[in-house]
């Protein structure tokens, strides 16, 4: 048992740090990186992100885990983790390439033709083009395969109609991966087809979604008679679900956890609040909750270390990584609620100028529900853990073995 890098890992880390030192500025206290649900579509940010990706690509730091034949470094997962840890210590532009490099790229490598690989992978790697994912629909959230947008063949093209939702970055992306229904008369998972779509095509309209915290990280994307050449089809006709699964399996496991610092902020908050003439931190009820939060936060971080250790041993983290998001989401929400309660009546404010720690707990309370929903709700994560980690029997299915068009989508009309 050893928390330190192996010699090989240490060497790689040193190399990464050397390059980063020469090319970026380290984070100072007070600096922060853009959160995953933040707004980040101002043109300047996009431009600086593109420059940074180009620079990394030039020196071989982009797409570390991609095979060398596609311009990657064939790096191990642990090297990738080390790079991410190191890069996070520097001030860098928002990362707008996660979906492209992590999900779209590998899917194209696995399922694309040679022509498709040549067409899309190099410019993706160099950061010239940004990619987004168009899977979810208003009526198909947790039940992703229940999507209803349609693709109809017309000569060499396909004509797409429908609506996608929760698309990160749609407003500045150049390409999107798209799963739509090409046949509603067969079973749910059998009638889907997978395309790459030019986001600048006529008939695509992007509308930002405002979140309850006021942020606009996601979009709705409307398709009206959008034409996609058949050459941009990435799956066999009707085999889109299998390809979508490849994409989703590449969705980056959230690793590490962090968050530990939040408990220290909570301690600071409690220390500064007076109750009955003493610091709230002296109250056993406050201490008990802080200790519970600390224990669980640390548990998540240490569980992340166990995952890292597995990666370091060459294993691939699987669905058990769902634990971090499932436990961490609730935990953060409870911490934020508790912090607001500690503030008493002032907890009812959301005014950075009036509150300790610039109202950041209020911000968290408003942003955390998104984390408990996006990328798999708590309920879906419990399904994943129980079925894919624990091997428990699946839920009874009401949509099995019938044509998609016959699956109930609402209450009976009688």
């Amino acid at each position, binding site marked *: 048992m050893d928390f330190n890098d192996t010699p090989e890992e240490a060497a790689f880390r040193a190399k990464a740090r050397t390059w980063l030192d020469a090319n970026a500025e380290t984070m100072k206290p007070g600096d922060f990186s853009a959160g995953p649900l933040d707004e980040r579509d101002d043109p300047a940010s996009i431009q600086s992100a593109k420059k940074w990706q180009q620079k990394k690509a030039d020196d071989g730091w982009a797409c570390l885990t991609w095979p060398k034949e596609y311009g990657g470094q064939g790096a191990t997962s642990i090297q990738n983790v080390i790079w991410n840890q190191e890069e996070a210590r520097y001030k860098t532009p928002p990362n707008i390439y996660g979906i492209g490099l992590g999900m779209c790229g590998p899917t194209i490598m696995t399922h694309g033709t040679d022509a498709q690989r040549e067409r899309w992978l190099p410019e993706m790697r160099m950061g010239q083009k940004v990619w987004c994912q168009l899977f*979810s629909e*208003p*009526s198909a*959230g*947790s*039940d992703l395969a*229940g999507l209803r947008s349609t693709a109809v063949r017309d000569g060499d093209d396909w004509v797409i109609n429908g609506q996608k939702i*929760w698309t990160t970055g749609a407003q500045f992306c150049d390409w999107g991966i798209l799963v739509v229904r090409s046949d509603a008369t067969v079973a749910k998972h059998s009638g889907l087809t997978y395309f790459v779509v030019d986001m600048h095509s006529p008939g695509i309209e992007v509308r930002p*979604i*405002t*979140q*309850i915290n*006021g942020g606009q990280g996601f979009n709705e994307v409307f398709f009206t008679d959008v034409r996609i050449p058949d050459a941009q089809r990435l799956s066999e006709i009707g085999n889109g679900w299998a390809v979508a699964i490849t994409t989703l399996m590449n969705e980056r496991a959230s690793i590490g956890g962090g968050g530990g610092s939040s408990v220290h902020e909570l301690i600071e908050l409690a220390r500064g*609040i*007076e*109750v*009955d*003439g003493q610091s*709230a931190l002296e109250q056993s*009820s406050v201490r008990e909750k802080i200790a519970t939060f600390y224990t669980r936060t640390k548990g998540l971080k240490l569980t992340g270390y166990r995952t890292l250790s597995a990666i370091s041993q060459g294993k691939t983290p699987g669905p058990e990584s769902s634990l971090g998001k499932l436990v961490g989401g609730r935990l953060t*929400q409870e911490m934020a*609620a508790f912090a*607001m*309660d*500690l*503030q*008493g*009546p*002032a*907890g*009812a*404010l*959301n*005014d950075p*100028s*009036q*509150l*300790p720690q610039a109202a950041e707990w*209020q911000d968290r*309370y*408003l942003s955390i*529900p*998104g984390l*408990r*929903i*996006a990328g798999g*709700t*708590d*309920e879906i994560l*419990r399904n994943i853990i129980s079925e894919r980690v624990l091997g428990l029997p699946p*839920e009874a*299915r*009401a*949509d099995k073995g*019938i044509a998609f068009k016959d*699956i*109930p*989508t*609402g*209450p009976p009309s009688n």
Partner: protein
Amino acid sequence: MNFDFSDDQKFLQQTARDYLAEHSPLSVCREVLETDKPYADDLWKGAAEMGWQGAVIPEEYGGAGFGHLELAMIAEEIGRALAPIPFSSSVYFATEAILQAGSEAQKKKYLPALAAGTTIGTFALTEKTGQNDIENVQAKVSDGKLSGTKFPVADGDVANFAVVAAQGDGGLSLYLVDLEGEGVQRESVTSFDPSRSMARIEFDGAPADLLGEAGQGASLASHLLDRAAALMAFEQLGSAQACFDITKEFTTGRYAFGRPVASFQAIKHRLADMWCEIELARSNAYYGAWALSNEEDELNVAACIARIQAGDALEQVSVEMVQMHGGVGYTWEYDCHLFYRRAKLLGAVLGSSAQWKDKLVDRIEAGEPS
């Protein structure tokens, strides 16, 4: 045994519900939340026409002369509709304070205008971030002039006057202070639920009119908090019931995997738990209302358990509401966040659940009635 509201009281409740369904759909709350409007003034006027602000004000002062059971019914409906008006500040606090402790002159001066909704009152106790701390109030009154800071004050930016707790000659006392007069500086501060407004108020020599006996401020304030808590519990109950009803309807109508989301035990069992919490809140709120109307002796415990269960239940169901709506629950466009915000606001303005729990044990120790 008749631990239930009367048919007349239920009729009054239905009238309030119907009125609010028409005049305060959630779009009214949303409009206040999204704009600079501090509250819905049309709705405020309409409520006054319905006689709600003056529900418990005797007819001789222009009120409806109802009891607190009737007011509780109105409060539940205001909660259900998330009505964006300074009702709790003006009615549960300012009006109650004057009814409880006001001189004849004070009653004559304030009650008719409060009943008519032409004057808005509020209560200014808290002075800084942290729990309500009646004993450590720093604001001072000397020679009838108030100085000090009150923060946060619910509806303090729109109220015409405040009942202020301050140290006077005889110790802590309550005072009536005109917020539009001299020596008052106030600023709106951003509320966690912008459909309800909050303020910081600096007093510097503001004229202060003693309310009740000098030196009785601590017990008066504590008693006022209890009364307001028992009423606020109905607002919380109404909001919780609305969260629940909307979530039940959404999950029943939304289909996933070929069947209603609410048919999955992951959802339906939690809906059952939410229902239990709300029913307990309802029972405790009823007890609070009963104590408010009948048995002052039991109010000190009844107010605590009403406040605790209603607040905890509302927070829980508001969190579940967002979660069970899935993606759309996290959008600005859907109404879930109106409840999610209001839950935290109502849970905070009278002091946290933890503070009420501590108070409850004090009171049980002091000898629980029967």
